[in-house]
């Protein structure tokens, strides 16, 4: 019951956020210097054609009406027409490229967790040791890692020098997808390691100093049982939020990383749309990424509240 109330409260906070997101995405059109109709028709368009297109696009109406029209279309799943590919709807264009990006984000997150957990555990197990020092150096050295550059270095080492993995494209079969996603996924995993390791190590150290760990040790439980069964379970809960927040950062870096690996996902499409000055596609992808982040934040909050009752009480 209490949890249901929390979920309801949390869902209500989404409404102003979603309205704000759509408004900012709508405003991108207004930020562009010059007349979108002229951009679309080219500089040699006749004034009559421009005026007609204005009417067609609703540009002659007041701002709030334009926004409401935009919102209305959005609710019907209509994201407009691409400028670059005439007559193609933005939604069909974007959704056909969704799969590689979803693969990238899911596999990348799995890699990130798989690397973070053992490193943070080893490090927190013996604070102050040489291993701990080495693990603690990762966040320092890694904070300035440009994700796309990590990708280029991986291509150089694993794709070109040691020819073990394909370096571009997405493959055609399931097996091909798996092969092609490894390097890009590793790239985004490595780029977010610094923050994840730092946070999990810090919460592990905090948890290891608490009373229930002392009790668990006093009961005579094995070291590994204490570390995994008690400490990691509790430190992990706090790190879920960090992981969720990081996912927002991670999806942003897919634009450059997908470009590096010529992975035809949504991020690469955003890059192509920018080159082609295809505003509706840029707007749609910005919106999709933002909605994705909002959803992930919602799910991490709900998961956090389900795992830790203090959150929903507070």
């Amino acid at each position: 019951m209490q949890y249901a109330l929390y979920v309801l409260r949390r869902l209500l906070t989404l409404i102003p956020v979603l309205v704000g997101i759509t408004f900012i995405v709508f405003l991108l059109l207004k930020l562009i210097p010059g007349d979108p109709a002229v951009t679309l028709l080219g500089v040699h368009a006749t004034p009559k054609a421009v005026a007609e297109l204005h009417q067609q696009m609703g540009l002659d109406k007041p701002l709030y009406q334009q926004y409401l029209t935009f919102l209305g279309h959005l609710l019907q799943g209509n994201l407009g027409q691409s400028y670059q590919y005439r007559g193609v709807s933005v939604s069909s264009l974007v959704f056909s490229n969704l799969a590689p990006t979803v693969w990238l984000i899911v596999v990348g997150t799995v890699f990130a967790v798989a690397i973070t957990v053992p490193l943070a555990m080893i490090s927190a197990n013996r604070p102050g040791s040489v291993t701990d020092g080495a693990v603690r150096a990762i966040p320092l050295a890694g904070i300035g890692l440009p994700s796309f550059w990590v990708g280029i270095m991986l291509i150089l080492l694993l794709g070109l020098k040691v020819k073990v993995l394909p370096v571009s494209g997405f493959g055609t079969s399931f097996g091909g997808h798996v092969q092609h996603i490894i390097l890009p996924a590793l790239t985004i995993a490595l780029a977010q390691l610094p923050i994840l390791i730092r946070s999990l190590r810090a919460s592990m150290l905090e948890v290891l100093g608490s009373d229930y760990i002392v009790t668990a040790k006093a009961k005579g439980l094995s070291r590994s049982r204490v570390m995994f069964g008690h400490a990691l379970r509790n430190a992990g809960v706090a790190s879920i939020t960090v992981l969720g927040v990081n996912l927002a950062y991670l999806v942003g870096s897919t634009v450059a990383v997908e470009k590096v690996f010529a992975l035809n996902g949504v991020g690469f499409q955003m890059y192509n749309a920018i080159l082609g000055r295809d505003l509706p596609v840029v707007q749609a992808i910005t919106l999709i990424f933002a909605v994705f982040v909002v959803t992930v934040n919602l799910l991490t909050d709900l998961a956090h509240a389900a795992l830790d009752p203090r959150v929903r009480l507070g």
Partner: protein
Amino acid sequence: MTSIPAPIPTVTADAPRQSRPGRNYTLYVGLTLFALIVLAAIFAPLLTSADPLQQNLLQARLAPGSSGHLLGTDDLGRDVLSRILFGARIDLKVGVLAVLIPLVVGSMLGLLCGWWGRWFDTIVMRLVDIVVAFPFYVLVIALVFALGQGTRSIYIAISAVGWVAYCRIVRGQVLVAKEQEYALAARASGLPTWRILVRHLLPNVILQAIVYAMSDIVLSILAIVTLSYLGLGVAPPTPEWGSMIAEGQNSLLTQWYLATIPGLCVVVVGLALALIADGLVNQFNKR
């Protein structure tokens, strides 16, 4: 929504329990490293005689260590060392300046939100919720796309997104600080509000924001480098690390160092600023 920290790497008080007496080597090493990088950028014309824009096709694709070209030359025969040094000027300048506006504006808003609360706080915090809903890079890229390529657009885009983190940090600190005795005493003694805010609260709450600014500089340098790599930032032929990586990627097999060296430079700048941030945290925890 407000329970979620900013979607950007933050420096947390990592190991305060090991507060060692003695010198703060982390801070000194970080400051020294960063000072060296800044000096190298400022005195770039003195450190290298080569013009970063001068093409020389007869001397193209020289390997690092060639006579007269310590880091070699690129496809057009331009000296890589000189391009790295002159590139540092742009990347560091834009990186630092792009953080100043968000630091000032965000901290001010956070101060007022924490102090006043009520409708002002509600409005600003809803705005914060909306901005953090966008992935940092995606919103910055979309804004630069709309505003047009160039450093001016980068300043605007990063400022429009970056103030949020400072606002949250300072607001959180003010909420705690305003209930503490010195703040209550200042209020009870009838000081004007601006004086309490500026003279008493601000010095106590700004430290965390400054620590964050160190890693935020890294973040904004990463944004410029990424934008330039995508062809949205600093336009070629101006030397800039991101566009150097993009150019170097084309000849990865034959001249691996062209894409590698500029990336390493970003990593070293990140290391220097991360050390400074950690050192500052240690310093404050010691006091």
